[in-house]
Structures are given as structure tokens and as C-alpha cells.
């Protein structure tokens, strides 16, 4: 079977690559792992590893040619196979948003990844042949202790290996002030310089990028939580367990998104990707930063199922053991500071999503009822931050209104 070889995202921000050089000719046998070509990305020239064995049947994008992520660049298969159909098929669909989504979503999103070897620091990454960060085990350990991102450190060992002295020289630079600070008299008055951990760096980059590139606007309303609190109590009693409020919020949000699917989209510049699956991330605070474990496809899951997944993901998040696909690529995000008593706040959109829901505390509030009488209700304020490039004000507003209606009248979920 002829297999398409597509341009993949070789750096986190890569949208398009230029074929610097083909290392194989048409008709050459290739093996999985061979470097079939070199690709110039926005940052550096990267090696493209062949994904399978076979014969390089056709080169679609020649030396110097550009290809967007997801576009066909070559075909691999068995000798004598006809590749025309495949090439034709790709020439019509190569750039369709649906196609590029699956390839870019995982590659692009390096959010909050603090493992030593594959952290890619967009600003500071040093080009290394093959993209591998070499470091001695000791250097890795010390870097982790001090929160250094290995990808941003130039190694002086053989083949660019990062060794102890490289980290020590960084520590020395960073400790000029803290050295003085060790004097017992002045210790409380002297500034402290903290190294920026890999996770913090990524949080900083992603949120800055989001806030600067996505035109944010904010919509707020209050939701009467009485019905949902009642439903939750009844459910908890019937299954003799405690389902988190966040699981309910995820489910109702997914139902509201179903009615306004554009909320579940990603801005791509030339295209907008409307995601098929509603993958909702929940912001979880960790001592060293935050992470957003994702419950995939919330629309087709029940509240209990969502709660079980959420529980498992939060536990993993707290043990730093989330897999990359468990926190990368949320199409919508919920952040809840209600437990701190925060009444109302606005959040920064978490890409690749185009909107984030900030949830405040549930507070007993006097509300003027339709009868003009005062009633005490359990109100919760939410605010929706949206990317205006994708979601217009009225769309965001009607989504938020539907979310409110669904939560206040849960039976409406069935309509």
C-alpha cells in the first residue's frame, strides 16, 4: 500500500516548512528512522525521519519547495505501485482544516511539559542536530533541581552534551546576588533571584502569546445554582458518592457547546478549525505552576463518567504523571476559583481553544424575583473570555445564555 508522507510540525510553532534537501532520490529504498530530508522550519533546520520501510516512490515537494503542515511531500510504498490517485486525493484536501488538525494538535502543544529531554523552549531552544538534547545524568538531575530547561542550555561536552560544569556556570551567574544575600543581617531585605522552571517558562510563553495574539473580550452573568445543587445532592445520595461540581459544569458546558459548535474552534490564520470532539480542560493548580488535564469528548459522556476521569486525571496531575495527550489540546477550558471564595474573575484563553470559562464561588445572594419580591438564591458568577477572531460577541452571549438556562433547568439538556 502506498503511504503518504506528510509535512509534520517539526517545531512547536511550525505552520509551514521548506524542504532544504532531499537525502533520498525517487526509487531509493528507505527504512523507518532514515533521515529522508532536511526541513527548514521557522526556527531551524530539522531532520525528517522516515516513518516506515519501503521505496521512495515519489517526491511531491522538491528541494526548496514549501509545504504546510499536513501537506503531502512524498509517497512511500512498494516498487511499481501507482501513486497518482493518492497524490490527486491529497492535492484536493491537503490543506483542509480537518486534515491539519490531527497533525498539528499534538505537535504544536507543548504546554507545561517539564520532562527534561523534550521540553522545547520556543524562545531559547538551541538548535541541535536531530533535535536531541544530550546531557549527563548528573547534569539532568541538577538542572531539574534548579528548574533549568535543558533545551535552553548550550552543552560543552562531546557532541554538545550538557555536563555538570555547564549548569554550574549558570548557577554561578544566577547566584551573584543570592551570594550576597546569604549575610544573615540583610537576608530579608535582599532581592532573591529565582530560576524559571521549564513549566513556568511554557506557561509564560503560551499565555503571553494568547493574550497578545487573541483579541479577548469578556461576558459575564450570574447563574442560579439551586436546581443543579439539588440534582447533585440527589445523585450523590443515589450512588452514595460525591460527584464534583466541576464534572457537572463540564457536562453542561459540553451540552451548551453542542448548540454553539463555533465555541469549540481554533484560529489558524487562513482557516478556522471547528473541532469535532468537545475536549474540555480543567485548570489544576500545582505547586510549581498549573496544568489543564482534559476530559475528551465530554458531549457523549455522562456526568459520572466525566467525574471518574477527572478524578484520575487530577491525581495524575498532582503526581506529575500526566501523559502529554492528557493535557495537550483542550478545545475549551474551565477554570474554577470558587473554592477560594473568588466571586468573579476573568481568565486568559488557553490555546488551541478559543474560549475559557472562569467560574466563581456559589454565594447566597438576594435576588429580585419576577414577582418583585426578594428571594435568597445560590448564585454563581461566570465569565467567558473569547477570541473575537473566532467567536463574535453575540455568539458568545447566546452560548453563555444557553449554559445558564441549561444549568438552571437541567431538564432542558434533553430538548
Amino acid at each position: 500500500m502506498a503511504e503518504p508522507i506528510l509535512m509534520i510540525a517539526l517545531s512547536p510553532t511550525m505552520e509551514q516548512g521548506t524542504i532544504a534537501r532531499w537525502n533520498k532520490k525517487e526509487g531509493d529504498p528507505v527504512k523507518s528512522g532514515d533521515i529522508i530530508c532536511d526541513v527548514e522550519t521557522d526556527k531551524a533546520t530539522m531532520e525528517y525521519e522516515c516513518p516506515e520501510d519501503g521505496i521512495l516512490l515519489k517526491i511531491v515537494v522538491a528541494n526548496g519547495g514549501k509545504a504546510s503542515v499536513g501537506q503531502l511531500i512524498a509517497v512511500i510504498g512498494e516498487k511499481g505501485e501507482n501513486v497518482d490517485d493518492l497524490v490527486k486525493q491529497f492535492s484536493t484536501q491537503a490543506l483542509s482544516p480537518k486534515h491539519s488538525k490531527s497533525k498539528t494538535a499534538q505537535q504544536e502543544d507543548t504546554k507545561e511539559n517539564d520532562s527534561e529531554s523534550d521540553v522545547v523552549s520556543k524562545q531559547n531552544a538551541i538548535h541541535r542536530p536531530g533535535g536531541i538534547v544530550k546531557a549527563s545524568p548528573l547534569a539532568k538531575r541538577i538542572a531539574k533541581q534548579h528548574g533549568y530547561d535543558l533545551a535552553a542550555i548550550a552543552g560543552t561536552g562531546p557532541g554538545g552534551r550538557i555536563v555538570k560544569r555547564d549548569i554550574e556556570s549558570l548557577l554561578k551567574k544566577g547566584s551573584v546576588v543570592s551570594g550576597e544575600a546569604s549575610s544573615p543581617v540583610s537576608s530579608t531585605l535582599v532581592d532573591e533571584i529565582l530560576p524559571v522552571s521549564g513549566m513556568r517558562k511554557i506557561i509564560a510563553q503560551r499565555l503571553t502569546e494568547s493574550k497578545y495574539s487573541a483579541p479577548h473580550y469578556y461576558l459575564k452573568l450570574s447563574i442560579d445554582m439551586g436546581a443543579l445543587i439539588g440534582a447533585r445532592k440527589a445523585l450523590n445520595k443515589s450512588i452514595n458518592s460525591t460527584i464534583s461540581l466541576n464534572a457537572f459544569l463540564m457536562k453542561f458546558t459540553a451540552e451548551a457547546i453542542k448548540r454553539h459548535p463555533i465555541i469549540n474552534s481554533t484560529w489558524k490564520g487562513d482557516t478556522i478549525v471547528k473541532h469535532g470532539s468537545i475536549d474540555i480542560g480543567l485548570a489544576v493548580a500545582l505547586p510549581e505552576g498549573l496544568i489543564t488535564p482534559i476530559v475528551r469528548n465530554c458531549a457523549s459522556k455522562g456526568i459520572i463518567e466525566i467525574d471518574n476521569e477527572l478524578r484520575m486525571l487530577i491525581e495524575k496531575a498532582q503526581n506529575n504523571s500526566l501523559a502529554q495527550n492528557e493535557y495537550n489540546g483542550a478545545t475549551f477550558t474551565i477554570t474554577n476559583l470558587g473554592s477560594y471564595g473568588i466571586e468573579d474573575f476573568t481568565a486568559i484563553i488557553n490555546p488551541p481553544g478559543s474560549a475559557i470559562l472562569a467560574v466563581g464561588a456559589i454565594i447566597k445572594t438576594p435576588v429580585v424575583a419576577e414577582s418583585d419580591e426578594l428571594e435568597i438564591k445560590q448564585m454563581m458568577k461566570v465569565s467567558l473570555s473569547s477570541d473575537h477572531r473566532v467567536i463574535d460577541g453575540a455568539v458568545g452571549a447566546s452560548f453563555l445564555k444557553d449554559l445558564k438556562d441549561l444549568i438552571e433547568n437541567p431538564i432542558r439538556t434533553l430538548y
Partner: protein
Amino acid sequence: MPEITYREALRQAIDEEMERDRTVFLLGEEVGEYNGAYKVSMGLLDKYGPERVLDTPITEEGFTGVGIGAACVGLRPIVEWMTFNFSIQALDQVLNNAAKLRHMSGGQFKVPIVFRGPNGPAEYLSSQHSQALQSMFAHIPGLLVVAPATPYDAKGLLKSAIRNDNPVVFLEAELMYAWKGHVPDEEYLIPIGKADIKRNGLDVTIVTYSKPLKIVLDAADILAQEDIDVEVVDLRSLRPIDEETIYKSVRKTNRCVVVDEAWPVCSVGSHVAWLVSKNCFDSLDAPVEVISSEDVPLPYNHRLELACQPSVEKVVKAVKKSLYME
């Protein structure tokens, strides 16, 4: 503390143990009338007589077997092999009897015996008589293997070996017999299985044993002139290996060079390198270096003979490599 030779330290150990325990006796080629091929048993025949200092025929398998049999029935023989090159004749006795009888008899027999003699290359002896064969013995469960490098260690370890209820292979070296060192008059023992830090340092750990200790210490002196602070771990015992002492040192220095004059394949040195790589993985700043003899039969040509063995230059180079200095 008197300064004596390695040879004299061994003699004292044997003499003191023979005097202390009537079941201890010495047998081997030329140990009696000739006072030992390397004069280790000087004077012992005169002192203890032919019943306890036995000259044997040139039959390693035979007299080694006699020793093992005697050990099984309650004596404590010391078998001297004129060199370890000849010990291979007796390997079946060591491997299949000495190392197995306690195990296969369910503990009914014990085998308190010492096999000792010079091991490793001397000079101008060509391939068959220049072999460092410790890897073969260290490979065998059921044996204890020791390789002291100083007169002090040699005396203390030989006394422990003689008193041990298991077969102990005791490796000396022809070129070490004349080495001198301080040895106290009063009695002392050195436990089997305990390494010794021969030099304290912070930058690199060199693990070695037996004769190469000297070149390692010389290399450490040269490196010290360049402000490289080497710690030297002398294993002393090859089976069991004192792993903790090695790990403690490597975890301090983050670098390890192993120097072993045996061939490199399946050697004590390569085993130590593996242990360190595995157990100190997160402490290592560089791959573990191994300096061994070249993987060839030792040439007779003296220049080549020396070139094949560990040297001060090779050790200095390996240390610098582990420090990424070359």
C-alpha cells in the same frame, strides 16, 4: 612502625598463623628446600619441618586436590602456585571441588584453604607466563578472591584468608614482592570484602586493585599538579566487591575511571564499570572509563609488552577524558 617488603609481609602472615594454629600448613613447588620460588616461605621449613612445609612434584592439579581434601577433613592448607599461569592446570579442582563442596554437601564439608601466588605480567615472560587471570576466579561463586597491593594489606588479608572457612584465592604479583610499606608489629586483620581509600579526592574516583595501584597513585600525583583531585579506591577484595565504598566515592566525585590490568572482556574492571553505571547513574557526569590491558596475548617485545598494559599516561588521559578536558 617497621618498613618491610610485601614478600616479608606474606611470610610473617604465614609464620604467625602456622604458629597460632597447628592445622595450618604450606604446600607447593619449591616452597621448602628452595625457600619458595620468590622466597616467600623463607625459613619456614627449618622452623616447622617437612610435615608442615611440603615440597610437591610439578603437578598443580594433584597437589591442589591434596590441599582441598586436607581442608575437607579439618586442616587449613595454604597452596602456593608458583604462578597463576600454572593454576589453570588445577582449575578443575578449584572450580568443581573447592568452590562446590560446601554447597553440594549441604554444609557438611567446609573448605578452609588458601590458593596463593603471583598473578599478572612481570617482564620479558611472553604470553603464556604474563597473564592476569583474576577474572576467571572472580567469576566463580563459592570462592573468595582477594588482591592486596601493599605489604600492610597483604599481611592483614592473608591472615584473614587463612582463618576463613571458605576457599580464598589470594593474588600477589612478582613485581610487588619487593615493594615496601609500613606494617605494625602488633597483630591485625583486614576483613575480606572491604575496600580501602588509598587517596582522598573530590574530582574523579579511580577504582583499582593489586599492582596497578602504583601507577594510579603516580597518575594522581601528576594530576594533582594540574589541580585535579583524584580519589583512589583500592578494592583489595574482588569477590565480594565492596560496592558501597565505590558508590559513596563516585556519588561524591561524579566521575569514575576503573583500572584493571586483566583483559577487558568480562573482567572485574568491566563488572565494576557496570555496577557504577547502574547504581550511580544519576550521579555520573561522564561515562565510566575503563583502562585494562589490551585485548591481545601479551607480546614478548618489551616496548609492545609495556604498551599493552595500563600506564600512568593512560590513566591521566582517562581521568581528563572523564572531566571533559580532552
